[in-house]
C-alpha cells in the first residue's frame, strides 16, 4: 500500500513540476472547442444542442495528447525496469500511474468543461450533470489510456497509433457520458441509471486495464 501511495505521490509531484503537460492538454481542449463554432457557424441553438458531445469528444482528444507520456519518461530513464522487478506488483504500479494521470489531467479537463461550455451556449442547468458525467467517465479515459500507452511504448509513430488503438475503447464511456447528459436535459428518469452504468464502465476499467497494461509492459522491459 505504501509503495502504491509513494508512486502516486511521485507521479503527482512530477506532474505538478512539469505543468506544461497539463497546460498543453488544457490549451488544446480550449482551442478545439473554440474552433468548432468557426467550423459550424455561430447558430447558438445548434451549438447548445451539440455542446455536450463536442465537450466530451474534445476532452477525449486532449486526454489522448497526454497519454503517451505515461510510461515514456520512466522507460527512458530505466525506472520502468525497477518498477517491474520491485516488490510492488506492476499492476498496482500501473494503477498508481493511471490514477495520477486522472488526478493531474482528467479532473482538470473535466472541471474546465463547463467553462468551455459557455462558448458553446451550453444550458447552464446542465452544468452539474456535465461535470458529474465527466468526473465519472474520466477515470476510464486514464485507465483505458494506460493500455494504449503500454502497447505503443516502443512503436513507431506511437502517439498517433495510441489514438487509433484507444478510441474504440472509449466508445462505451462516450456513449453513456452523452446519454446521461441527454437524460438530464430532457428530465427523464434515465439519468441515475445511465450515470451508474458510466461509473460501472470506469470501475471495470480500473479493475481490468492495469492487468493488460502491466502484461504489455512486462513484454517490453527486458
Amino acid at each position: 500500500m505504501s509503495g502504491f501511495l509513494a508512486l502516486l505521490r511521485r507521479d503527482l509531484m512530477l506532474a505538478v513540476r512539469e505543468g506544461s503537460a497539463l497546460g498543453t492538454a488544457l490549451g488544446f481542449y480550449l482551442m478545439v472547442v473554440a474552433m468548432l463554432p468557426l467550423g459550424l457557424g455561430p447558430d447558438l441553438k445548434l451549438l447548445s444542442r451539440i455542446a455536450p458531445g463536442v465537450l466530451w469528444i474534445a476532452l477525449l482528444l486532449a486526454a489522448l495528447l497526454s497519454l503517451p507520456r505515461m510510461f515514456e519518461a520512466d522507460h527512458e530513464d530505466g525506472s520502468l525496469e525497477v518498477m517491474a522487478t520491485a516488490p510492488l506488483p506492476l499492476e498496482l504500479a500501473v494503477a498508481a500511474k493511471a490514477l495520477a494521470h486522472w488526478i493531474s489531467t482528467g479532473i482538470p479537463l473535466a472541471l474546465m468543461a463547463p467553462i468551455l461550455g459557455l462558448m458553446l451556449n451550453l444550458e447552464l442547468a446542465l452544468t452539474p450533470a456535465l461535470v458529474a458525467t465527466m468526473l465519472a467517465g474520466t477515470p476510464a479515459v486514464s485507465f483505458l489510456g494506460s493500455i494504449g500507452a503500454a502497447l505503443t511504448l516502443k512503436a513507431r509513430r506511437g502517439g498517433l497509433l495510441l489514438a487509433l488503438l484507444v478510441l474504440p475503447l472509449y466508445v462505451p464511456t462516450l456513449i453513456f457520458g452523452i446519454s446521461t447528459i441527454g437524460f438530464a436535459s430532457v428530465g427523464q428518469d434515465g439519468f441515475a441509471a445511465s450515470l451508474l452504468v458510466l461509473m460501472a464502465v470506469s470501475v471495470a476499467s480500473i479493475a481490468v486495464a492495469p492487468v493488460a497494461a502491466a502484461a504489455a509492459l512486462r513484454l517490453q522491459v527486458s
Partner: protein
Amino acid sequence: MSPMQTLTQRLANPTRFMAFSGAILPWMAVASALLIAYAMYLVFFVAPPDYQQGETVKIMYIHVPSAWLALGGYAIIALSSFGLLVFRHPLADVSAKAAAPIGAAFTLAALITGALWGKPMWGTYWVWDARLTSMLMLFFLYLGLIALRSSLEDEALASKLTAVLALVGVSILPIIKFSVDWWNTLHQPSTGFTSSVDASMRTPLLISAAGFLLLFIALHLKAMQNEIMRRRVKAMRVAEVERGDRLMSAGAE
C-alpha cells in the same frame, strides 16, 4: 485429451502443418467455390423477393455472411492470441497475423454492403444503426491490430503485444456492442426490418454463409502457409548473413 487439443498439438509443427494444409486446401477451395456458386444460383433464380423490401433483400445474402465472418475472424484472432500467450503454441501467432487482413476485408465488405443496403431501406448511405456502427468499431479494432503489428520492428514483441491488444479488444467488444445498441434505441425507435428470416430465404443464406466460411478458412490456411514461408526465408537470410560474416572474419585472419 479432446480431439481439438490433439489436432492443434499435431499441427504445432510447421512442416506438418504445411503438409496438412497443402493437402486439404484444394478440396476446400473447390468445395467453397461449389457452395458459393450454388448459393448464388439460389439467390438469383430461386429465392423470392421480400414482402417489404422487394429485391434489395438479395444484398442480405452477402451482407450477413460477411458480418458473421467479420466477427468469426476476430474470434479466431482472439483464440490464437490466447493460444500464444497462455500455451505458447508455435503457430498461434502465424494464425493471428494471417487472419487479420482477411477478417478486416470481410468487415469492410459488411460495411459497404450494409451501407448500400441501407440507402434503399432508410434513404441514406450511412446509417448509424446498431449493427453497422458496431461493425465499424470492429473494423477499427482490426485496423488497430494491423497497425500495431506493422509499427514494431521486433517481430517476437509485436506478436505478443498484438495478442494482448486482441484480447483487450475481444473483452471490450461486447460492451461496445451493448452500448451502441442501447444508444441506437435511444435515438432511433426500431426501424429494424424483420429480423426473422423466412424459410425460403434461410436456405440460400446458410448455403452462402457455408460457402464463404470455407473460403475464409481456405484463405486463412493459405495465408498461414505464406507467413510460415516468409519466416523461413527470413531465418535463412539471417543464417546466410551470419555465415558470410563468419567466413569473412575467418578469411581476414
